[in-house]
C-alpha cells in the first residue's frame, strides 16, 4: 500500500475493486460521517461521474468543483489522474464527503475514487473503471481541457457512458477540435450524448435573443435579416472564446434553417456566410481586444426598406445585459435584463441534470463545423 496523498483520509492500495468498496463502507462508518441518529451517512447516488485530470492542477480544480456539487448531485465520482511521476503504474485511493442535509441533519455522503496512472498505463484505466461504475445508473464522462477526440483512450472511457461533457472554452485547437467533436457524434460505434459547458454559458444569451422572436411584430421583420454581428471580447493576456461565437452562429443557423455556406478568417475574427433559400446572411464575428472574454454583444440587422437593429449588449458588470430595438437611431424598445455568469460547478450541475440528448446543442455544433468546413 502506498501512503495516501496529503489531505485525503483514505487508503491507497492496488486497484482491487472489492477492497475499494469495503474501504468505502469503513469510511462511511467513521464517527464524523455518521448521522445524528448514529446511522452511517446516507449514500444517495444518481449517477457515476468519470472525470479525467491531465495533471495535478486539473485534479485540484476537478475536486473543488466536485466538492461544490455534493449538495446537488450526489454520485460516485471516479477521477482519472494522468501522472508521469506516479510511483506505481496504476494506483487508487478513495474518500467520502458527507454533509448534513435538511432539518433532521441526516448526513448525505458521496464517494470519490481517484485512479492515478502513468501515461503508459492509461490504456488500462477503462478496464479498471468499468467494475467501479454503479450498477444501473447513468455514467457521465467529464473531460476538462481538450479531449483526445480521435484516440482510443477516450473511445474506451466513453463506451459505457451515456454522456460526454467537455468545455470548448478549454480547446486549444478550436476549429479542428470543434470539427472532431461534431464528427465524434456521427461515428457509428459511438452512442453517446454530448454536452459542453461553454454552450451552457450561452444560455442567458440564447434566452434574451429568443425573446426578439417571441414578439410577432418583430418576428416578421427578422425574417428579412441581412446580417448578424457578434462581438467577442479578448482580455489582455487571455483568450477570446472563439468556440462560443461559432456555437452561437451554429445555433442560429440550425434553428433558423440557414445553410452554412463558408467562412473567411479575418485578422480580427471571422466572416461566416449562410444561405436561407437564395438569400445570403452574413455573420460577422469581431474580436475586441481588452474586453472580458466571451460574447459581448449580438446584433441582428435588417437593412431592407426601413432598417431595424435588434441588439443584446453585455453591461459593464458581469451580470447585466441591455436589450434594445432601434429603428434607424431611434430606440423603440429598451430593457435591462440579468445575464448570469455561471461557475464551473453550476455548469457541470446543469449537464448532470440533462438526462437526454441536447439536440439543440448537437445541431448547433454540426452547423458550426459546417461553417468551418464549407
Amino acid at each position, binding site marked *: 500500500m502506498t501512503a495516501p496523498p496529503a489531505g485525503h483520509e483514505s487508503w491507497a492500495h492496488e486497484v482491487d475493486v472489492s477492497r475499494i468498496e469495503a474501504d468505502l463502507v469503513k469510511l462511511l462508518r467513521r464517527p464524523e460521517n455518521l448521522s445524528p441518529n448514529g446511522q452511517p451517512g*446516507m449514500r*444517495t447516488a*444518481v449517477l457515476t461521474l468519470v472525470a479525467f485530470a491531465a495533471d495535478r492542477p486539473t485534479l485540484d480544480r476537478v475536486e473543488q468543483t466536485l466538492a461544490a*456539487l455534493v*449538495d*446537488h*448531485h*450526489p454520485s460516485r465520482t471516479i477521477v482519472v489522474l494522468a501522472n508521469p511521476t506516479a510511483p506505481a503504474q496504476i494506483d487508487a485511493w478513495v474518500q467520502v464527503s458527507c454533509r448534513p*442535509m*435538511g*432539518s*433532521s441533519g*441526516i448526513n*448525505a455522503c458521496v464517494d470519490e475514487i481517484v485512479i492515478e496512472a502513468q501515461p503508459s498505463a492509461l490504456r488500462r484505466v477503462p478496464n479498471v473503471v468499468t467494475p467501479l461504475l454503479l450498477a444501473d445508473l447513468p455514467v457521465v464522462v467529464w473531460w476538462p481541457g481538450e479531449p483526445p477526440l480521435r484516440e482510443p483512450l477516450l473511445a474506451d472511457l466513453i463506451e459505457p457512458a451515456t454522456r460526454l461533457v467537455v468545455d470548448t472554452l478549454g480547446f486549444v485547437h478550436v476549429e479542428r477540435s470543434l470539427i472532431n467533436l461534431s464528427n465524434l457524434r456521427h461515428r457509428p460505434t459511438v452512442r453517446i450524448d454530448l454536452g459542453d459547458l461553454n454552450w451552457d454559458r450561452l*444560455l*442567458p444569451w*440564447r*434566452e*434574451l*435573443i*429568443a*425573446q*426578439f*422572436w*417571441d*414578439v*410577432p*411584430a418583430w*418576428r416578421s421583420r427578422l425574417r428579412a435579416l441581412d446580417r448578424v454581428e457578434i462581438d467577442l471580447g479578448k482580455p489582455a493576456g487571455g483568450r477570446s472564446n472563439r468556440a462560443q461565437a461559432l456555437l452561437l452562429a451554429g*445555433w*442560429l443557423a440550425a*434553428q*433558423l*434553417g440557414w445553410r452554412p455556406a463558408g467562412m473567411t478568417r479575418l485578422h480580427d475574427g471571422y466572416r461566416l456566410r449562410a444561405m436561407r433559400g437564395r438569400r445570403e446572411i452574413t455573420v460577422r464575428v469581431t474580436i475586441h481586444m481588452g474586453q472580458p472574454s466571451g460574447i459581448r454583444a449580438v446584433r441582428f440587422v435588417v437593412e431592407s426598406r426601413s432598417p431595424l437593429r435588434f441588439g443584446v449588449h453585455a*453591461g459593464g458588470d458581469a*451580470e*447585466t445585459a441591455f*436589450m434594445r430595438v432601434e429603428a434607424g437611431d431611434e430606440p423603440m*424598445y429598451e*430593457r*435591462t*435584463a*440579468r445575464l448570469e455568469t455561471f461557475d464551473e460547478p453550476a455548469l457541470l*450541475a446543469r449537464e448532470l*441534470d440533462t438526462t437526454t440528448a*441536447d*439536440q*439543440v*446543442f448537437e445541431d448547433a455544433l454540426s452547423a458550426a463545423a459546417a461553417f468551418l468546413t464549407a
Partner: protein
Amino acid sequence: MTEAVTVANPLRVGLRLERTPDPCIFVLFGATGDLTRRKLIPALYQLSHQRLLPANFAVVGFARRDWDDEAFRRHMKEAVDEFVPNVHPGVWESFAQCLYFNRSEFQDPEGYANLAKLLAKIDRERGTGGNRLYYLATSPEAYPDIIRNLGEANLSHREGYGTHRGPWTRIVVEKPFGHDLATAQRLNRIISAVFRERQVFRIDHYLGKETVQNILALRFANLIFEPIWNSQYVDHVQITVAESVGVEGRAGYYEEAGAIRDMVQNHMLQLLTLTAMEPPTTFEADPVRDEKVKVLRSVHLPTDKVGEWTVRGQYGPGWINGQPVPAYRQEPGVDPSSDTGTYVALKLLIENWRWAGTPFYLRTGKRLPKRITEIAITFKKVPHLLFARDAAAALEPNVLALRIQPDEGISLRFGSKVPGQHMRIRSVNMDFLYGIAFGTTPGDAYERLLLDAMLGDPTLFTRRDEVEQAWALITCITEAWQKQKPPPFPNYSAGEWGPEAADELIGRDGRAWRRL
C-alpha cells in the same frame, strides 16, 4: 394574439420555456395588500429576473389608496427588497418601469373606465397586445363588485374569447373561494356571468409546490406503486398539515374561516384527491381535474357520523420551540370567547372500487409542535407472518410517506433482518430527499402558478365543479357542527399534537396517528 394561435419560435427549442407567455398586462386588484407585497410582486420580479416574463409586459395596480405610479413603484421596491434575496438593481429598474397604478374604489365604475383607458395606453406604448390577466388579491367581499364592474366596462372580452379573433383575458381568483357551498356557488354564478370558465383560474398555491406535483410523478411515472395503491393493500391513509405558528395577525379572516375552511376545504382536499385519483388519460388540465372531481364526488362522511368522525380543537397557552405562546383566545383580534376551531381531525371514506373500506384520516392545526405536511400510506400487515412472534415484535407495517414540507421527499418503511445469529426483523426507513438528490431550490409556488396563468395552462388551478364539490363536503360538516354543542375550548395546549379526542378518533379503529 389569442392563446389558440401560437406561432412556434424556433429559437425557443431546448430553452426552459418552449413557449413564453404572450405580451400582457397583469392587473392586480388589491395592489396595496399583504399578498401583493409578500408574494405576488416578488414572484413577478423573480420571473423577470429569470428572463421568464414576456418582452412586453406591464403591471397595473388597482386599489383605493392614494398612490400614483411612483408611489406604487417605491412601495413595491420595498417589498422586493424585503422578500427577495439579491435583487439586481438594473433588472429592478427595468421591471419598475412597467408598474402602473390606477387609484379607485372597487365599486366605482369610473375607476374601471379609467382602467380601460390606461390599459389601451399601455397597449400602444408597450405593445402588450390587448392580453389581460386580472388577479383578485383582495378580501373576498370585494370580488362581486370587481367582477361586475369588469363586465360592465367591457373588460372581460367574454364574447370574443376562444373565437381566435381577439386577445385573451383571464381572471385569477384567490382563496377563500366562498365561505360555504352557497356562497361558492353564488360567486361562481357572478363570475360566469362575466367570464367563461376557460378564462377563470382559481388558485390554490399548494398545487404550485414541486412536492405536491411530485405525487403525480411518483404515482404515474412508476409502475410499481399502482398495483398496490388500493384498498386491497392499503390499510389507511393519513394526511397531516401541521403548523407551529398561530394566527399571525390574520384574526379577522381566521375567526370566520377556522381550520376547516383555511386548510381542509382547499389544501387538504387537494392532497387527498391527488393521492386517491385514478390515472388521467393525459397530463392536461381537464383530464386531471375530471379525475379529482370524481374523487370528491366519492368522498363520504355520513351526516349522522359527523360527531363521531370529526374532532374540533382550539389551542390554549403552551410552548413552541421552548418559547411560551398565548392561547388562541388571547391572540390580538380574537374574540376572548371564540369558538373557532384551530384544529380539525376527520375520518373520511372514499366510496369507489379502489378505496372502499380504506379510511382516510386528515388532521390539521395551528400551534402544533412542528411544521410538517405529509401524506402517509400505511399498508396492511402481511397476511401470514412466517417468523416467530418475538422475532418480529418490532416489525411495523410498510409505510410510504410523501413529505410535502419541510425536508421534501419520500420515505419507505420496510422490514429487514437484523444482522446476527437469530432471525430478528425490524423496520427501517429508506429515504429520498429532494434536497439531496436534486439540490436545486424549488421556485416559489406563486412563480409557477403566475406563469401558468399567463400561459393559459389551468392544470394546477381548481375548476368550478371541483370547488363546489369540496364545499359540499365541508358545508355538510359545518352544518352538522352548528347543530351540536361545541367542545369546551381550549382543548389542547400549544405545542401538543392536538386534543385527546383526535387520538380517540383514530384509536377506535385500532390505529394511531403517526409520530412526526
